[in-house]
């Protein structure tokens, strides 16, 4: 067979094989693409599940904190006031001075007012109804009432509210940071500053306590510090946590809340 004819036949075979390979490659691409898409979807679902679990856990923790606060208030405050009022009533004889009646009336009035304040804390989904700003303000008021802390709260005018679920998690993170301050910082001043810039909301919580060495945060042998919990929650809502502290110089924790991603 002449060389030219042989070349033609070889070209035909090579071209046919080439076309078959193109087809096979197309099939392979479809397969890999679908597999990747499925995996991506599964990861998104897992992420959503984790977010929902975190949200539920957060709600339960907030509720538990509220119950602890209420039980302490009833025991330490309202209970004491009512006991005092009862003692006053027991001292009432035939002739009761107006001063004593007024004193008892004041005590009962204070007990009623404190009960009313407490009833607010019992409302379900309080953050949903009054908003995160008002919730933080009330949290600081209750801290101030203990007499152990001076608090300040600043929020910018252009602060835009996040979605309801993110609010709950942010609020719980702030609550945990404040718990840490109460337990470990030996501080007497707590400041919260909320600002928004370029769609990123920053929540800055600072205290004037003993501070700590920030290199210890990542040490596995010190898991009890509670910050890891805050960092884990932050990841769920596209938030970064910036910890600025040194021994003797207080602590500033800043939460940078970025716009919510569509995958959650």
């Amino acid at each position, binding site marked *: 067979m002449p060389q030219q*004819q042989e070349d033609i036949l070889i070209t*035909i075979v090579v071209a*046919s094989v080439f*076309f078959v390979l*193109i087809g096979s490659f*197309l099939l392979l691409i479809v397969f890999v693409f*679908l597999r990747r898409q499925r995996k991506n979807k599964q990861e998104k679902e897992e992420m959503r599940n984790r977010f929902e679990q975190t949200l539920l856990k957060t709600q339960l923790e907030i509720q538990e904190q509220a119950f602890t606060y209420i039980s302490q208030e009833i025991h330490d405050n309202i209970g004491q006031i009512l006991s005092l009022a009862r003692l006053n009533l027991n001292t009432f004889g035939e002739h009761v001075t107006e001063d004593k009646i007024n004193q008892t009336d004041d005590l009962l009035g204070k007990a009623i007012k404190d009960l009313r304040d407490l009833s607010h804390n019992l409302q379900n989904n309080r953050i949903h109804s009054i908003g995160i700003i008002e919730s933080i303000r009330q949290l600081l008021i209750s801290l101030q009432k203990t007499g152990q802390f001076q608090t300040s709260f600043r929020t910018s005018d252009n602060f835009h509210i996040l979605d309801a679920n993110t609010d709950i998690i942010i609020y719980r993170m702030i609550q945990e940071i404040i718990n840490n301050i109460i337990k470990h910082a030996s501080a007497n001043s707590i400041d919260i500053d909320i600002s928004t810039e370029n769609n990123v909301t920053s929540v800055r919580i600072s205290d004037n306590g003993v501070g700590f060495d920030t290199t210890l945060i990542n040490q596995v042998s010190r898991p009890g510090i509670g910050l890891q919990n805050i960092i884990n929650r932050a990841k769920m809502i596209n938030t970064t946590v910036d910890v600025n502290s040194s021994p003797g110089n207080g602590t500033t924790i800043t939460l940078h809340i970025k716009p919510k991603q569509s995958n959650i």
Partner: protein
Amino acid sequence: MQSAIYLFFQVASLIFAVSLYFKKRDKILLYFIPFLFLTVGIELFGFWSTTRDLKNYWVYNVFTTIEFLFYSFLFHLHFKKSIFKKTVFLFAPTFVTIVILNILFVQGFNKTFNTYTFLLGSFFIVIFCCCFFYESVLPDKIDQQLSRQPFFWITSGLLIFYLGSVIINALFEYLRNNDLQAEGIRIYSIINNILNVLLYGSFCIAFYLCPNNKKTSSLPS
């Protein structure tokens, strides 16, 4: 003997389809059984006529037209997007018209194998295969595992078959007329056999994956 391998696979897939139909009663099997009967019949006739040196182009020219229409019908059934359905719907009458025009004015009925219409049909089948894969990667289809769908295997077989056979079929007449008949037929036979094995093999996988639609009833005890 080598040239009859594809015939063996065609008969095997027909037997497989018939036996599975009695078990599964699926629509795809129902459509394929008469088509495979026709295919095997045509191939047997072609085989017989070749041994007797009879010109059988007209049989293949008619059969390939029916073949393309059958595959288009299957694609029409499986497409979800209306634009693809409409394309198939328009393709069928247009293709038949072009085949008739080609027979009447260009390549004739029994003069030669109608390569122009074969290439046109192959081109559209490959396009339909791509459309099917496009629909398969759309977000609403992600949950379905592609390799478990019978029509995926049919489409894969068709894509490989028509991409692979397009060159050899396009140059069929050239090989015949340019002193390449002996070698050309051998290569044609090898490529055709391999592609047919892949095509009918993937049909068999598709038949196997067809869902069981047979209604069963049990008597109360």
